[in-house]
């Protein structure tokens, strides 16, 4: 009897999450439909016209899609020189030592810091430096946002990568050492080929995190609704335009914002799925 009750509860709670997930997709699609109907799906994605003026209302997602992809891509590039050394340090060079444990704990701590704090740091510490160095006159922009995003995703990339690096069989490494390979050679010829797809998937998952980051980006990107024409100009991302505009939005504008939300949802879902598939493959090797 008790077993039966337990089973029913288990099944019920297992079903709830997929139902909620499906409900989110359904309501997003439902509310976004009027924007897609008005502008056409592809036209909505590729139009850079974002105009609030009543009567001339026109909404296109291109400035925000480019803003999101640019910041995410840049953040990924900036993140590699921070996260890869940490992963190698923890997973290979100083594996199992106290200092490696300390380093990995600190890196993991970075993941727990709320994004508003990264935003504040970027706003009050990093922005003045960007202005001081005359990288951009206003300090905020794509580059500033991407830089802080990079630091935010370091823990995600580093800790998962180091797990995969640790998984490389020691027989292989010992074999390489026995043949007189240096440490650098072992890493280049043995560790990377073995752990490569796992490390790659770690970065894919880190991208997934950077795509949807809202608060930090809103504080640092300058929030101008244009397709960015250089890295130092201001821009806007899909997440930040929604956070900025939903409060006073209704009608077509609200529907367009929800449509952007749907596109962001799809992009994030696809990227995460790719990451998951790659991880599964890496674990089978």
């Amino acid at each position, binding site marked *: 009897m008790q077993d039966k009750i337990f089973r029913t509860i288990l099944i019920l709670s297992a079903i709830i999450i997929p139902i909620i997930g499906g409900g989110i997709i359904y309501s997003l699609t439902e509310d976004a439909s009027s924007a897609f109907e008005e502008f056409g799906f592809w036209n909505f994605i590729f139009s850079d016209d*974002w*105009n*609030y*003026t*009543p009567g001339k209302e026109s909404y296109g997602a291109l400035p925000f899609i480019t803003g999101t992809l640019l910041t995410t891509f840049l953040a990924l590039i900036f993140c590699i020189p921070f996260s890869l050394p940490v992963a190698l340090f923890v997973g290979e060079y100083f594996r199992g030592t106290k200092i490696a444990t300390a380093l990995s704990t600190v890196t993991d701590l970075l993941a727990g810091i709320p994004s508003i704090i990264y935003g504040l740091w970027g*706003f*009050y510490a990093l*922005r*003045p430096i960007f*202005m001081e160095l005359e990288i951009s*006159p*206003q*300090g*905020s*922009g794509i580059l500033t946002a991407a830089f802080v995003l990079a630091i935010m995703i370091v823990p995600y990339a580093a800790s998962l990568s180091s797990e995969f690096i640790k998984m490389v069989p020691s027989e292989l490494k010992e074999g390489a050492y026995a043949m007189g390979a240096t440490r650098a050679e072992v890493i280049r010829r043995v560790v990377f080929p073995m752990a490569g797809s796992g490390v790659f998937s770690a970065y894919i998952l880190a991208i997934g995190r950077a795509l949807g980051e809202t608060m930090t980006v*809103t*504080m640092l990107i*300058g*929030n*101008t*609704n244009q397709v960015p024409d250089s890295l130092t100009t*201001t821009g*806007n991302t899909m997440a*930040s335009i929604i*956070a*900025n*505009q939903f*409060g*006073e*939005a*209704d009608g077509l504008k609200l529907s367009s914002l929800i449509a952007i939300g749907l596109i962001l949802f799809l992009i994030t879902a696809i990227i995460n799925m790719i990451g998951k598939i790659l991880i599964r493959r890496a674990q089978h090797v």
Partner: protein
Amino acid sequence: MKKMYAFAAALLALTLGACSGQKTANGRESVELTGAGATFPLPFYTMTFDNYNAAHGDKVSYGGIGSGGGVRNLKDGIVDFCGSDAFLSDEEMKEMKPVVHVPTCMGAVVLAYNLPGVEKLNLSGDVIADIFAGKITKWDDARLKELNPDVKLPSQNIMPVYRSDGSGTTFIFTDYLSKVSENWKTNYGSGKSVNFPVGQAAKGNPGVAGIIGNTQYTIGYIGSEYAFAQKIAYANVKNKRGEMITPSTESISAAAGEIPQDTRCSITDADAAGAYPISCFTWLIIYQEQNYSNRSLEQAQATLDLLQYMLTDSVQQTTATVHYAPLPKKAVELSRQNLKTVTYNGQAILK
């Protein structure tokens, strides 16, 4: 397990005890009122609703979700009243059942700037419009020099800052710019969100003030209630009569000139002596027919009691303590008349 039940029961009893069985000052069952909307008057509302609760017993909760969100909530019938910095347009009024606008206090939009060594800056409407349109790009532009003959203006690029979120503050500011600049009106217009051609944007008054605070040569617009409470430099603006006016409680109140019966009017660029030209009302909006979404008569009476309380002299006197300006007598008088038209099942609630 038993302990948990007992705890839940105690909690339930507490909540029930809190909402029922208490009488208000005028003998009616006390109720809970909900409102939502504009964030601009939030500090004033928080203070006043607390005082009202203490004095009258009705609990009022107000969510600062933005004017647009508030109006949407009222349309959905899930709130007793909504707050808005912009009065409903004729088109918006057509989409809804009849509503009553009640102004509650006045505020303004000020131009904050960051110019090292410049204590006082004078601006005029056309110059502000051209700065935000990207036509005036240098601080030592001839037109700025003409307005500020005694000030040494640096030869630096002007960096405008505007609001990234939809906001009543942006509406009032762009409404003013549209009145004083034909170019602004045709190219950018007025609204809660406007496509500014130059500069950068930040979220909320704190965001804009934050950027101005730590970035030299910036200029941006901020709600007066926020600017007055902060140590931030803001400019004088020339009004319609050619007077250079410093934004203050007095100069904001002076901007309310002629007010129509329904109090829906824009008072930017007011033609009045001593008027700060970028001033505004903020309103609470309720349905004229109060029986909607199964609301009780008590609920309707409480809504009106609250609004009447907001209009009293003693409450209006407190506006300045939280950096707003009191309503002119005329607005109070008109609002009292308008509240008399509010009904429940077609019967006037106030006698």
